């Protein structure tokens, strides 16, 4: 009864082949079937999501705000200066812009501003960074940018079906890692890549985030989350470049997702959003714990 249902990349690619359509088109139909809404409503809803992304970015660049304990805020405008700075930048203006946008989203989120969790709040900077920077930098059409967000959602659905999007369940690989995989695919469709190239870019991207711990200072979504989003945006483009140049992931995307799930199972709960391991228990992390009034760590809680 569901003609556009998919739970993994194999099924998604089969649908693309059958309908001779890009990933975004399959996902738009998937959502129409799922929600029983028309194309117009579904597209309008994603446009609304895109508008929230835009506002969140503008807010942090135009009116930067420091978050609690000065852990976040004010980096997005610095990064944005890359576009006008006389200093020679090593990355392209597109990458610089995406980094600024990704950081901006994270900064707005940290300050309890309004964002689109895409796929989660912790990883919410990467996709808007990559997609909106491309829209602004390449002058990509509005429709193409919105389609790219549908494409990214497909990758998110595959990860949610095959593993998880919860850092409490599988660490940061499931949030920033997932977001980079989603953005890599979205960027690939925006530049005219094939569905296979999209998901191959996702595989390349996600592999390099496998095993990433979720170890935020004081448990706050700020450090290191925002800067991981910032650098994640540049990785997404790099993965897309490699993919369209013909670099194939030896491991198909569905298997990478399985590996992510497997690692999540093995990963200590101290590295899964509990603020009991990694960066959270460094000297700086412990200082933040104290300021937050969290109970001091017992010696047996730190390995």
């Amino acid at each position, binding site marked *: 009864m569901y003609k556009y*249902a998919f739970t993994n990349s194999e099924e998604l690619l089969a649908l693309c082949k059958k309908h001779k359509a890009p990933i975004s088109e399959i*996902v738009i139909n998937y959502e129409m079937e799922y929600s029983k809404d028309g194309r117009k409503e579904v597209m309008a809803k*994603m446009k609304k999501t895109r508008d929230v992304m835009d506002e969140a970015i503008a807010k942090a660049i135009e009116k930067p705000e420091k978050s609690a304990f000065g852990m976040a805020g004010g980096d997005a405008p610095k990064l944005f200066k890359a576009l006008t700075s006389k200093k020679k930048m090593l990355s392209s203006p597109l990458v610089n812009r995406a980094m600024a946008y990704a950081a901006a989203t994270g900064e707005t989120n940290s300050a309890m501003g*309004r964002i*689109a969790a895409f796929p989660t*709040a912790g990883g919410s900077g990467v996709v808007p960074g990559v997609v909106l920077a491309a829209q602004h930098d390449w002058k990509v059409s509005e429709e193409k940018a919105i389609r790219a967000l549908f494409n990214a959602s497909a990758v998110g659905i595959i990860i949610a079906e095959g593993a998880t999007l919860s850092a409490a369940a599988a660490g940061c690989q499931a949030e920033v890692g997932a977001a980079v995989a989603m953005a890599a695919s979205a960027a690939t469709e925006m530049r005219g890549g094939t569905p296979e190239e999209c998901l191959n870019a996702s595989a390349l991207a996600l592999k390099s985030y496998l095993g990433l711990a979720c170890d935020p200072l004081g*448990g706050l*979504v700020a450090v290191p989350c925002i800067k991981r989003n910032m650098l994640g945006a540049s990785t997404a483009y790099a993965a897309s470049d490699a993919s369209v140049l013909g670099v194939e992931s030896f491991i198909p995307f569905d298997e990478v997702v399985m590996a992510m799930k497997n690692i999540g199972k093995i990963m200590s709960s101290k590295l899964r*959003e*509990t603020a009991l391991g990694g960066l959270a228990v460094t000297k700086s992390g412990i200082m933040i714990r104290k300021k937050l009034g969290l109970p001091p760590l017992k010696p047996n809680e730190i390995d």
Partner: protein
Amino acid sequence: MPTTTQKSGPHYSVFDIAGPIMVGPSSSHTAGACKIGQMARALFHGTPEKVTFYLHGSFATVYKGHATDRALVGGILKFKTSDPRIKNSFDFAKKENIKYEFITTDLGEKYHPNTVKIVLEKWDRQPMEITGSSIGGGMIKIVKIEQFDVDLTGVAGQFKTLVVWHNNNQQNLDALCKEVEKLRIRIHDIQTTKVDKHALSIINTSGRRLKLSEVLEMEDLEGIAEVRSLTSLEK
């Protein structure tokens, strides 16, 4: 404990991934917590006087920094995940005379690390206990309603859900389903959990939402204790 489910089709809406639109900082600890609060309030039906939150796992360790506490209370106040009032939900709760308390606890290994047990109280009725997990990206699951283990998924909703407390007699449930279908509401799937003589069923339907008068009529059916009609969750 026997739980029966019949389900088909995809599990996620695109807008479960592309969203929710929310007030930060954490989709699981802020937006998901808000949604669990919303569900608890809907299941309780009416304004509670006191709400106690038992925080488990990562909810227990990092709830303050993520404003999980403010989001839970915001959900109880029926705030949407994107409502900026979440930031000041404690003040709004005081205005509505809702008392709240947070207790950190260990509910056991079988629960997802982001889980909260919510106890809602009001002087003229039995307290109600609801346990929910925030499973990532703002998606939630109600896993226990009173003594019943359930799987009530709160992904951005395609369905309107009926929650029915009834006795452990299939015929009574069938009679209720017939009534629902008479109203031209299509039943998508039914999930029933039985404990001793009692049972709880979650009925996902499509079509319009039941009117309050229709819900009350169903509560008069033989063997049916209570019925709640939930709207589909905001995407």
